[in-house]
């Protein structure tokens, strides 16, 4: 029994330590701490948001129950980490961030309802949330009607641009084009087999990929879609064997992913031989946990972020993420994009000198972040991010090794002409 108190103290000390470490890199960047007294509440909050003299309320809106909890857990963890780090270095305009977390429960009407609650009842100054396009589409009218600010983390199909949303993930062209160029140039790919789960994101992404492949004068030898949750891929694997494409371009998602890669391996297609080579935009380090590194090794993924990125921002980020959530955790592309949300919002609020939504909106384009784990990012006029595209090579341990990155930032282009 004597040990009890010390055991209970442990997490507290760990957390304080974490907060201290978290604050360090950002304090050394030369920004003087902002005092709340310099920004009187009446001035920074003219529209009745939940802002007091020392706190500001924001919302976190993800699914922690239901099918999507698999994917959204990482985003919640990243957003909480970012908020904790921001608080440790003094908060936003001298105010500590308090978050209200709501569960979208993998159900789109629930997302809309909770979004309304966060905006109307809780008066949150910003909401970090949503994962699937369906959930974003469900909350979009709510954010536009009640004038809220949503930071949306997932790479998605594009074809959307709302003044009330900052898209911190890539739209489709940012994710796809550079990767295809790379595989054509470096691997001499001539023919592609497109494969995906049957809903809007894979279909739109494949449309863009097909257009691009055909523009390059190369061939698409097959294009196929399987229902979400499909678990038997033997027939399509046989078809792939027959067509002998240079590249299998796969956008299979969810539980189907695991079935697809396990069956691919069982059917004797060894991805590390690259005959055919497998290129995907839907498998992050998160998904590999379920698929198994040994089944995925040798495949290539096109993302903007990989956990293995060799830069100081990222090393710090990975270390702090693990400290907060455990050593065994992995960080995928979307998790990193979710982490950017609170930081981008903080920068916009500070630039605007106000929490008011319209001022934050106006201040957002041009916001830069030099401390992002993926490197430098900047908000475009169209509310998407300028970011680099990278290709990772899956290793046995479930991590990706970066084999290519674009030298310049890719411009976000949610409505790509000639690709629709």
């Amino acid at each position, binding site marked *: 029994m004597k040990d009890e108190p010390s055991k209970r103290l442990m997490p507290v000390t760990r957390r304080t330590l974490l907060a201290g470490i978290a604050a360090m890199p950002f304090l050394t960047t030369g920004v003087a701490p902002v005092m709340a007294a310099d920004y009187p509440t009446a001035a920074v909050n003219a529209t009745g948001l939940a802002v007091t003299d020392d706190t500001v309320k924001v919302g976190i809106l993800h699914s922690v129950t239901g099918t999507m909890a698999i994917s959204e*857990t990482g985003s919640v963890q990243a957003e909480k980490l970012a908020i904790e780090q921001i608080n440790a270095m003094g908060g936003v305009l001298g105010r500590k961030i308090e978050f209200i977390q709501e569960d979208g429960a993998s159900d789109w009407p629930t997302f809309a309802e909770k979004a309304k609650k966060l905006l109307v009842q809780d008066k949150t100054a910003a909401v970090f949330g949503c994962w699937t396009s369906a959930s974003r589409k469900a909350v979009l009218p709510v954010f536009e009607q009640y004038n809220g600010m949503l930071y949306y983390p997932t790479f998605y199909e594009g074809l959307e641009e709302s003044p009330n949303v900052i898209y911190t993930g890539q739209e489709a062209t940012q994710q796809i084009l550079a990767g295809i160029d790379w595989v054509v140039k470096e691997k001499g790919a001539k023919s592609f087999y497109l494969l995906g789960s049957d809903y809007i994101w894979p279909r739109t992404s494949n449309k863009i990929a097909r257009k691009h492949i055909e523009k390059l004068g190369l061939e698409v030898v097959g294009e*196929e879609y*399987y229902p979400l949750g499909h678990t038997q891929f033997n027939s399509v694997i046989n078809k792939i064997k027959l067509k002998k494409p240079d590249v299998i371009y796969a956008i299979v998602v969810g539980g189907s992913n695991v079935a697809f890669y*396990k069956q691919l391996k069982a059917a004797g297609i060894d991805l590390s031989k690259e005959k055919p080579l497998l290129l995907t935009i839907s498998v992050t380090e*998160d998904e590999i946990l*379920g698929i198994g590194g040994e089944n995925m090794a040798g495949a290539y993924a096109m993302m903007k972020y990989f956990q293995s990125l060799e830069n100081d921002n990222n090393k710090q980020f990975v270390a702090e993420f693990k400290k907060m959530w455990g050593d065994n955790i992995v960080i995928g592309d979307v998790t990193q994009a979710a982490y950017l949300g609170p930081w981008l919002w903080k920068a916009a609020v500070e630039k605007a000198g106000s929490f008011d939504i319209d001022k934050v909106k106006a201040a957002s384009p041009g916001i830069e972040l030099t401390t992002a784990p993926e490197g430098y990012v900047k908000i475009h006029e169209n509310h998407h991010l300028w970011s680099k595209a990278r290709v990772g090579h899956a290793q046995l341990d479930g991590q990706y090794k970066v084999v290519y990155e674009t030298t310049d930032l890719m411009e976000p282009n949610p409505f790509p002409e000639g690709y629709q």
Partner: protein
Amino acid sequence: MIGDYTFGEFTSILAMQGFAGLSLFSVFVLMALGLAIIFGQMGVINMAHGEFMILGAYVTYLCSHLATEYVPVLFPVYFFAAMTLAFCASFGLGVLVEWGLIRHLYRRPLDTLLATWGLSLILQQVYRSVFGAREVGVTLPDWMMGSVALTDMIEIPINGLFVMGLTVLIAFAVYLMMARSTFGKQVRAVLQNRVMAGAVGIDTKRVDRMTFGLGCGIAGIAGSAFTMIGSTGPTAGQLYIVDTFLVVVFGGAGSLIGTIASAFTISQAQSAMEFFMSGSMAKVLTLLTVVGILMLRPQGLFTLNIRR
């Protein structure tokens, strides 16, 4: 389609498609057997069937973990122990559920439907709380992965062969138990006439409990085997439940032969159609065909003639 390929390619694809169909067939039989026993012998619609399968999958996951951590020597064969334990766990949970939930609802089929659906939601959240929302990876021994290359083109997946063998074994064991053993006779007696069966000294409550447990136990084995070909996550059970019901209903509730025949028809049709068209379209066509046949033959492919 055929014109583009040489004769050799064509025959080997035919062989591999045939195998793909057979392997889908054994997957269907394995997942539907447990449900068919419970539905057929007891008239209970178990919506939580998928979650019993996932229980088996999680037991396998735990075993693979323990085997790698503590007894790496036994790793190549841990899977057999895992399957046995998966059966025991699902059987145990099944017996518990029958005792706590199902037996109170025997005369209310619609209520069992709701109750077991609720149970499936509860189990999903329990898995999520215990194992985390993310999918877990089950490490398999090397000998179970990969394929046997018969010719340059024909490669037979080993896990497919394994599932097939397992299905034959379990189907045969179930057949023996139902047709030859005392327990099987009791089950059939209770099905035909519950009151008379009780009157001649059969403990009908115990028979019910064992039947339900058995069905769940087989689901556990199926779940364990499916870690080879599919995902293990809190909601993975939902991926199987629709196909499972399709097979059982199409085959005619209450007939094990019907279940097998229906699994064969659906799997062959589906895998053949998947080869000639896109996966989504193949699924639509399969479902349409099944609906069409069920409209003509509402009782399913096979039915038992029993006096009610």
